[in-house]
């Protein structure tokens, strides 16, 4: 670790020092008179300014503009050419006889996306918690080659969604290696990507494969924070391993599992890219999620016009769901803190 750190430091210093110093001196020519005029006390505002401009332009302003888009109609991007349409887009999205049956909705594609996303998130998050807990517990044991195994499980986190999607499409194809393996062992070929039920299962599996390492790391950090003397005490009492796990490890790990639950749900609701590359949302609409609806409606409708207003309205709905999830997270972490204070 120390060696790596020194190497990086040297690398940074050697490669970047000269242009970096030149740039910084050049900026100082502007900054020095500014400091003279406004004084040292006001300098932090200057330092904050670039970042805040970026946040303002690409996060805060868009938040307002999004509302404006969702209540105006037309297929133009510029507001001069868009006319006010009130809650038309929202009414259109929510025009449903029965919210549980996507076919009864005017915008059935959106509701299919909602249903698929709910299904996807429930199974993905549930299995994610289970497998990241299992993996972390095993990786925390005194095993041979622990460092190697840790990096193996973490590796897929770094892969891009396109790479993940393509690798698994290549494996799960009808004439792919997995089907060849199954046939060689006397089974029948599966349509992993072209059967609606299987496509969803494959999507959930691939998404867990790609992100499990990240959540395992969070659980692992929690496991390492459990004081070892608790385990020593349990061992002296002759407590069985199963009991130790359920009575010591699991309760003390709850805060980390909660973080995993919330982060995975927030990320899960926004899933788009891997599934888009893996199945393209198909067959039919069986694996198209909400973000894919927003993307397709706003930017990729083939044939028909791009409906920015409808896409904006759908993203408002998604935004509210994410806000609710965040509030639950805040509430849960607050109530935990309060409990700790009572103790």
């Amino acid at each position, binding site marked *: 670790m120390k060696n790596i750190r020194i190497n990086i430091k040297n690398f940074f210093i050697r490669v970047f020092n000269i242009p970096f110093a030149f740039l910084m001196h050049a900026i100082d020519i502007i900054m020095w008179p500014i400091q003279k005029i406004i004084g040292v006390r006001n*300098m932090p505002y200057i330092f904050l300014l670039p970042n805040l401009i970026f946040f303002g332009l690409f996060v805060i302003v868009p938040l307002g503009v999004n509302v404006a888009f969702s209540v105006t109609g037309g297929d133009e991007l510029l507001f001069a050419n868009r006319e006010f349409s009130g809650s038309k887009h929202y009414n259109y999205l929510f025009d449903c006889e029965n919210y549980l049956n996507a076919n009864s909705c005017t915008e059935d594609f959106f509701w299919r996306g909602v249903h698929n996303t709910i299904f996807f998130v429930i199974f993905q998050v549930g299995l994610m918690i289970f497998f990241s807990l299992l993996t972390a517990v095993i990786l925390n044991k005194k095993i041979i080659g622990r460092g190697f*195994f840790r990096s193996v499980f973490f590796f897929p986190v770094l892969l891009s969604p396109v790479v993940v999607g393509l690798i698994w499409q290549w494996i799960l194809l009808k004439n792919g290696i997995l089907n060849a393996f199954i*046939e060689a062992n006397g089974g029948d070929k599966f349509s992993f990507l072209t059967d609606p039920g299987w496509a969803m299962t494959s999507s959930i599996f691939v998404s867990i494969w790609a992100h499990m390492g990240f959540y395992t790391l969070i659980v692992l950090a929690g496991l390492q924070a459990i004081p070892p003397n608790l385990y020593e005490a349990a061992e002296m009492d002759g407590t069985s391993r199963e009991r130790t796990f359920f009575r010591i490890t699991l309760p003390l790990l709850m805060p980390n599992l909660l973080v995993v639950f919330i982060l995975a749900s927030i990320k899960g609701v926004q899933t788009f890219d891997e599934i888009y590359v893996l199945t393209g949302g198909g067959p039919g609409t069986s694996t198209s999620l909400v973000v894919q609806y927003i993307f397709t409606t706003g930017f990729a409708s083939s044939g028909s016009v791009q409906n920015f207003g409808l896409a904006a309205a759908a993203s408002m709905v998604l935004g509210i769901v994410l806000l609710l999830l965040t509030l639950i997270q805040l509430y849960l972490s607050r109530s935990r803190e309060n409990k700790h204070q009572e103790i």
Partner: protein
Amino acid sequence: MGNTGSLIKNIVTQKKYKEKYHWTDYFSYFYLFLGVFLMFGPIIWLGLSSVKTLAGIQEYPPTILPLSQIQVEVDGYEKPLSLYNVTLEDGSTAELAEIKRVGITSKMVDPKDTEKKYKIPIDKREKIREFSVQWDNYLDPLRKYNFLLYFKNSIFVTVIATIITLIINSMAAYALSIYEFRGKNIALVFVIGTLLIPLTIILVPVFYVIANFGMINSLWGVILPGAATPTGVFLLRQYMLTLPRELIEAARMDHASEWAIYWRIVLPLSIPAIAVLAIFSIMWRWNDFLWPLIVLSKSEVYTLQIALNAFHGELTSQWNYVLAMTMVTLLPIALIFTYLQKFITTGIASTGMK
């Protein structure tokens, strides 16, 4: 008494309680090796497939190693023919080339004597293979399909975006950690607030802002929206809070400007945190997909990820090229990972972000 009994038994068998293997130990190793297979297997399979010939890739069931069938040029035939080991009716074997397959029989010719033609049932023949690595899968897309340009675009986006992110985020972190000023808490809340607004819920309006700047189909339209990251500001601020204030006071005594304190003292001392943010930023930018997909619709500005996706859509049958380019796309990140693995994992563990 029972305890004494087991104690004696343990002494006799020379085993302490601790050293006894529990079923969970066996399960752990089973799980770990299954994990290695599941996590690395797909990447290895990708690597092996990416150097197969197109014919080798379309073969079913596939061979694990890139063993391709030998092709021979035979006089009188335009295309090279595939070579087989054939058991003839009289029991002898011969090397024949296939002209055409008809149902379960195959018309074959002896490549040495083109007058001799045979009709052979397909179960009486076996492919002759040789180990061959098809580097053309890598070279062709770079030569014919502009992948070098996409590679350059990706590097441009990654490098420029990372530099901008590092500079403006470290400036903001410097202001929020070293100074006390009015509105500091508001600024902090503002930064936390942006953490709650992912790009997926403001796609349309950010597209609108980018369009107003005339940056559709420009790499700057990809770079700018994500340049200010709340994660980065917090990571750097947390680190800068631990720096000794005396250094800064001493520099002020020496009449250093605030900007000089920032870049001569605070930045060099924060290099460990900056390195973590740099690695994150490189990873985010290199792997970025949804936003470039929206902004970039002309092929000359594609990044590697977008090009790969588009290329795959156009050439679903040309898996050999697609797989080779997938390999090219993942390689830089894999290299970074092998060298800086610990940095990345500690960074994620300390911020809970990726």
